[in-house]
């Protein structure tokens, strides 16, 4: 019981972080499913959403700031696709990936210039950042809300993809790019729509993520971005439920590893700090490599065969 009591806070915060990763991971997995591109800039778009919120909240009431932040972020995602990826549609995959890395570099440097590299405090959003007590532990309300909100958004997204025209177009494009084009699908619109959905979810995710953190710095998007990508690979890239499940697993594992020292000390297995927390990031990547080596298509990925 004591052990459970000591693990519980980490478990709850892990589920919450997992939900936030899930919202970012969907952007990765959808873009990869259609363009076969690791959108390295996605994590930085997530960071920009945080920064925009900081600046907007300083000059206007929150009920204006939040929708405006989402619109600006979505516009950024749309512009990135049009400017940096669309011209390279016929280029080799490596060029597009390099372009994505270049965009990520540009966004980080731009953010560094605008903020002066200082930590920007994220505004407190009423209600969701209130402190509440659950199961005898104190946390902010956002921790509890995140998993539910994530599941609602994901269900909505899956319905959109399975039951609307644009969703059908997306599925067609991800199956076969060229044939879909021949069937009269306007490929550029579909790709733009993918980026819009992805960045929209990242904007929501950033709101939930940064509420629990001290602030936003230009590099704060890089790590969550990479982890969300790992989650997408873990669940089988291209599959939305896979990405969400992968993200929850990674979030929970990471959070428990962060607290493993404390938990084991309560348990009595170890008597001094081992420093497992250092490996909370490394664990994610170790998991990635294990998955890639033993099941490259992930948990729910489709098997593909290369034709010569």
């Amino acid at each position, binding site marked *: 019981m004591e052990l459970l009591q000591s693990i519980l806070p980490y478990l709850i915060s892990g589920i919450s972080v997992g939900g936030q990763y899930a919202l970012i991971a969907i952007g990765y997995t959808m873009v990869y499913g259609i363009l076969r591109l690791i959108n390295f800039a996605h994590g930085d778009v997530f960071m920009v959403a945080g920064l925009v919120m900081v600046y907007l909240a300083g000059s206007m009431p929150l009920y204006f700031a939040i929708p405006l932040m989402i619109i600006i972020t979505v516009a950024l995602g749309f512009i990135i696709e049009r400017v940096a990826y669309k011209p390279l549609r016929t280029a080799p995959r*490596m060029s597009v990936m390099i372009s994505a890395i*270049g965009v990520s570099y540009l966004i980080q440097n731009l953010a560094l*210039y605008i903020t002066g590299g200082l930590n920007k405090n994220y505004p407190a959003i009423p209600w969701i950042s209130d402190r509440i007590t659950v199961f005898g532990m104190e946390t902010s309300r956002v921790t509890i809300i995140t998993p539910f909100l994530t599941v609602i958004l994901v269900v909505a997204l899956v319905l959109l993809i399975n039951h609307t025209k644009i969703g059908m177009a997306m599925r067609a494009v991800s199956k076969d790019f060229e044939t879909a084009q021949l069937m009269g699908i306007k490929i550029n619109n579909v790709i733009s729509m993918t980026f819009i959905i992805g960045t929209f979810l990242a904007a929501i995710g950033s709101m939930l993520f940064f509420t629990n953190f001290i602030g936003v710095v230009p590099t704060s998007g890089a790590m969550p971005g990479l982890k969300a990508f790992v989650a997408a*690979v873990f669940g089988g890239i291209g599959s939305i439920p896979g990405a969400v499940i992968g993200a929850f697993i990674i979030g929970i594992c990471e959070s428990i590893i962060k607290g493993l020292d404390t938990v084991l000390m309560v348990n009595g297995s170890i008597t001094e700090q081992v420093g497992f927390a250092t490996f909370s*990031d*490394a664990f994610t*990547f170790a998991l990635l490599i294990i998955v890639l080596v033993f099941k490259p298509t992930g948990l729910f990925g489709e098997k593909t065969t290369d034709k010569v």
Partner: protein
Amino acid sequence: MLLEKKQNNRKNIISLIAVALFLVVVLILDQVILPTNKMSMLLTVLQKGSVYALAAVSMNLLNGFTGLFSLGHAGFMLLGAYTYAIFTIPNAVRDTVYMYYDAAIRFSLPEVLRNSMGSLGTVLGVIIAVLLAGLVAAFFAWLIGLPVLKLKSDYLAIATLGFAEIIRAVFQWGKLGPVTNGSNLLKSFERISTFKLTVGATTIKLSTFVPVLIAVVCIALIVLLVNSTYGRAFKSIRDDEVAAEAMGINLAKHKMISFVTSSFFAGVSGATMAMVLGIAQANNFKSNMTYEILLMVVLGGIGSISGSVIGSVLFVAASEWWLRGLDSGVFLGINAPGIFRNGFRLVVFSVIIMIVVLFFRKGIMGDRELPEQLGKLWKKIRGLFAKKVKSEEVADHE
């Protein structure tokens, strides 16, 4: 055939002479330019430029010549930098460097060898430490390569990126503190500002010469590798894996050779970086460093060794020297402290890089090399003169 061989010989001799001349010029610059001089930036650019040039060329060997898109370079450079630093910290200061830990390794290669062979021992010790740095990086590359090299394109990229992050985390782990100093930095080891040669009464400064020499030697080795049968095998793997396998090329073996060699030189460049900066800290070797090196390769042209060198020297010169003004208020005589403040340099810089990536996809050199381009230019100039002489002759006859 014979003629071609002769021409190749002549080309090689010309290249050798050019490189030797360059080294002599660097050695002279090292003596002439004082640290207080404005031109001392040139030395900094040469030092850091050679570090990054080697890193970029070794990455190009993998990405440009073998077609393996790997993003683990920062990790291998970290291994090199730490190996070099750990084995060259003098015993006397080891305890002040490892402030919070009880240092596990208690000898310094240059010091041990200095005691037995005099000043030559220092040089030998540094050389051995640099080689060791490369070997450690190569060994880890071999370990990592066993599972990872089977993966294709972007999966390989993300897996190697992950490995670099794991290495960084391991090096910052408190339990390894006695070896790696945990998350604290390593310092006080042999660095370039202490590299001097004393002949009689005169001292010759080598602080720029050494990193440049290391880079030149290593890049020359990579050029030899690329032009060998192995190099041709690498290129065939890049162009078409299936066809290469059908022609009897052992994919696993050649990919591994390329990966391990590239990581060896990445380790050496990491050691050189530690030498130049005078510190080694795991936190500096983030994935952003890999991205920067990749952008240098792209700037110079993927698949061109001289391109990578030019790209990285330009990158370093622009960010350390030419665009400095963008950060400090005055640029090209325009005084606008409001816009030209900290960080603007990097913004301008990344915009330039995006333009190259989007509109000049081949970079500066494409997949051509500088010597052959210069050779072509020389022939063109000579052709121009030859024609002129001929037409004059014709005019005379009439």
